[in-house]
């Protein structure tokens, strides 16, 4: 699913209550601290840590280990050193998939976040209550649909006899109709548009929710100072949403690097390898070609890339924010 894994930066909430604690409560608060220092509380973390450590951290460790071996999943494994990692950076197909995922960032992240901002501003600024309510409900629907179903719906949209071509013919653009998902140059942007469809509503609604929390007097002040809707957007809305934009960007970047369902269903990576993405590549390498070591090394590289892209955004939003 689209927001299957939502990420938000861990901003610590400084507890005001602690600072304002009345003196009479000091004693019990000290006892609370004493209890906190103890190890008894660990009982409550153990189940979570156990299952997470066993299947997530443990699997991550195993992936690191696999990545250093040649293994077909059945027979004997053979020490490979860094061969698999070297192969990741030498193999055109593997590198190409990573490049495609960077292109997809443009579609999964840049378009939904920027269009989402504009649309949220429109819905928030306008007095169209009923339209706003409708928009909220409808735009959210793609979030609930399995990505597999979205892929199926769009595969039909983009088919030779599908609605997209029908529309193009109707407006006199019959010359550019084609089987979009089978087109060598346009398949990847077409897949990107499916991603836009999935994420536009999510970004719009998230930003809209946070926009309603911006102090309305700021907008009034901007209007009195003679700011038009555009100036107002850049002077009031954008700075107020800094942290939420960072959240949107982070979530959508992770989703574009980890995309699997849509591509697997809509194109399977084709035509050729024109829409191949890392997720599908890992699946193929591990379960079709039985190159477990290479698939694992590729996964580790993918994870490193995600972290490399995301950590600077976290830093930016935190120093810029409150």
């Amino acid at each position, binding site marked *: 699913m689209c927001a299957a894994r*939502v990420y938000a930066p861990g901003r610590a909430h400084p507890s005001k209550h602690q600072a304002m604690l009345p003196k009479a409560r000091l004693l*019990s608060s000290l006892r609370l601290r004493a209890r906190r220092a103890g190890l008894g509380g660990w009982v409550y973390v153990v189940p979570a840590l156990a299952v997470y450590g066993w299947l997530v951290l443990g699997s991550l460790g195993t992936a690191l280990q696999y990545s250093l071996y040649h293994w077909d999943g059945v027979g004997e494994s053979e020490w490979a050193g860094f061969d698999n990692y070297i192969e990741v950076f030498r193999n055109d197909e593997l590198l190409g998939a990573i490049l495609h995922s960077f292109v997809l960032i443009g579609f999964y992240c840049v378009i939904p976040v920027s269009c989402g901002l504009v649309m949220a501003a429109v819905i928030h600024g306008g007095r169209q209550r009923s339209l706003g309510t409708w928009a909220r409900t409808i735009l959210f629907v793609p979030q609930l649909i399995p990505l597999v179903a979205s892929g199926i719906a769009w595969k039909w949209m983009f088919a030779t006899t599908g609605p997209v071509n029908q529309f193009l013919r109707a407006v006199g653009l019959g010359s550019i109709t084609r089987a979009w998902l089978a087109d060598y140059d346009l398949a990847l942007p077409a897949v990107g548009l499916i991603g836009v469809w999935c994420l536009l509503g999510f970004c719009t609604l998230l930003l809209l929710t946070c926009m309603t929390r911006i102090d309305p007097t700021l907008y009034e002040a901007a209007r009195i100072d003679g700011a038009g809707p555009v100036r107002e957007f850049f002077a009031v809305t954008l700075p107020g949403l800094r942290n939420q934009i960072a959240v949107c960007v982070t979530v959508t970047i992770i989703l574009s690097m980890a995309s699997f369902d849509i591509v697997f269903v809509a194109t399977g990576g084709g035509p050729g390898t024109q829409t191949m993405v890392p997720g599908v590549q890992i699946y193929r390498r591990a379960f079709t070609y039985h190159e477990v070591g290479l698939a694992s090394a590729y996964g580790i590289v993918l994870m490193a890339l995600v972290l490399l892209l995301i950590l600077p955004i976290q830093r930016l939003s935190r120093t810029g924010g409150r």
Partner: protein
Amino acid sequence: MITNRREMLAGRLIVLVAIAYTLVPLLSMFLAALHPQGTAPRGFEWPADPQWGNFRDAFNSANMAALLKSSLIIEAAVVPVSVLIATMAGFALGQLRVAGHKVIFVVMLLGLTMPFEVVITPLYYRMRDLGLLDTRWAIILPLIALFMSFGVFWMRAHFLNLPDEFSEAALVDGASTWQTFRYVHLPLARPAMATLAILYFVWTWNQFILALVMVNDPERRTMAGALGYFQSQWGIDVVLLSAGSLVILTPTLIVFLIFQRQFVAALLQGAIKG
């Protein structure tokens, strides 16, 4: 707020275009599903003779009743356990602040940024070694683990925002840690837990790659996983595939329309909180 006429029109137009963009693929899938089976629909058009029976045929030939049951079994195993474990951990990290809580939290955060695909291979071999492949356990156990990062993150945020006074009051009354958790914090955490449960429910229902890798039999998969199977079976028959997809996504849509407010709030807070 002062808004002039031209702005209002332009704004309305943008929103309308976005609504159309969202609806057209779903509507066209619906129209395609009404065409006679085995024919190729031509674009966005109302069929001459709508075949409502297609939905029934898709339901039957996909053995949808068994699929629903399978998905519900997986949900019933994943959601309550994950929510409970995450709540306990969130309590320990956010309220008790056990020794090392910062380190644990950072380690947990790692899972939030990790694409599923990175661990899918080791998970497969782990489940194979346990003899769990092709059983629902091979979906249930990894899902609980993969959901844990977000759940702990979410519940910790809830417990951090709670004033200390609740725990202090319970302490003064002589309650043990367990009693404080059970009778003070668990009831207070109910809204946060409900939201988490909604999120877990949708994510489990729509989970695809785990189902695809771990289980071959579509009748032991999640709904999205089963749909993936039909796509490979009925790939060419646009009509039946569309009807099947619609049948599969209807339950979540109905639940959504009923609990719309909670749903939107849940999925959005999921990103805002923290």
